[in-house]
């Protein structure tokens, strides 16, 4: 059993994200700077409140594992009413870096992060518990638990869409039902 796993890990070619391969491995493995495989990680920017619900924490880890990427979270729980933001209930998190690559700077999207952002947002679309999936690759929202996420662009008027789209050029917002 351990031998079979060892052989798989020793041949990184089919798992390498650097070559633009979208193949997803079943283990949630990421490559470190020395080329060794390890578990994908979810870490936090210093100062951000990581006190999110266990379900949300699990979702972040499953998202990292399924997309085979390391995630850096820049925001978790915040003060305020749950009606105003899922963050205020500990049911949302924001991703600012994927595999150490920043998603954007301020209002400007990083073109180098394009494939990684698409990979994470596409993966998040497959999770039925994800309610809000907002980022540079698109704005997706599920109306209720279990319902697929709808692409908001064709549905919303330009002004409302822009107010949501442009501020999500430097991070991906993921919120849960």
């Amino acid at each position, binding site marked *: 059993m351990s031998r079979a796993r060892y052989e798989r890990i020793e041949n990184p070619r089919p798992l390498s994200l650097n070559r633009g391969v979208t193949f997803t491995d079943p283990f949630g493995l990421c490559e470190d700077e020395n080329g060794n495989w390890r578990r994908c990680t979810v870490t936090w920017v210093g100062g951000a409140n990581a006190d999110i619900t266990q379900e949300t924490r699990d979702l972040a880890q499953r998202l990292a594992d399924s997309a085979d990427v390391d995630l850096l979270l*820049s925001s978790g729980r915040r003060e305020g009413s749950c009606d105003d933001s899922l963050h205020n209930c500990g049911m949302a998190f924001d991703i600012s870096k994927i595999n150490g690559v920043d*998603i954007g700077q301020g209002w400007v999207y*990083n073109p180098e992060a394009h494939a990684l952002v698409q990979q994470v947002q596409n993966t998040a679309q497959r999770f039925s518990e994800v309610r809000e999936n*907002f980022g540079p690759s698109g704005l997706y929202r599920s109306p209720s638990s279990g319902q697929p996420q709808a692409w908001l662009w064709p549905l919303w008027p330009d002004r409302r869409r822009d107010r949501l789209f442009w501020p999500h050029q430097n991070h991906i917002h993921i919120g849960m039902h």
Partner: protein
Amino acid sequence: MVLMFSGIERPTTRALLVMVLIGCRSQSSGGGPPQQQTVGDLPAVATGCPDVAVGDTLVFSDVRSVEQTGDLSGFQFALIRGDTGWGGVSREAAGELGPPMPLVEVTIEAASRATAFVVPNGPDSSRFSGTMSCDSLFGWFKAYRSTPARWSVYRRVRS
């Protein structure tokens, strides 16, 4: 009555003029109390900005909140003049305001108020080049080598 009024007005005007000159001289020369020398004379910033005192840190921001998620997005810059020149810190908002990161290559020309600095970001540093006014910092922000510079306006945040 008129003479009396003129007699009072003349010294007052002179006194005001002297006060302004002394104030300008102390700011532009950088002399005076140690705190003026440490934090900077701010001549370019102080000119025409009545609410800017010597020793103030100037904070500019384009951070905005998103209605649906409450997320914050944008940049906040704080510019400070030290012993060896200008310095500053940036805080990026990617959901919420992140930790302060030092700016490098900060230059502010006194006469023109031309302002430039670099936001270190790994191999691909972001650069700002523009002008400072009493109320805002405006100019071109080039986030990445491969992206075009974006016209940006950072409003001054008064504490």
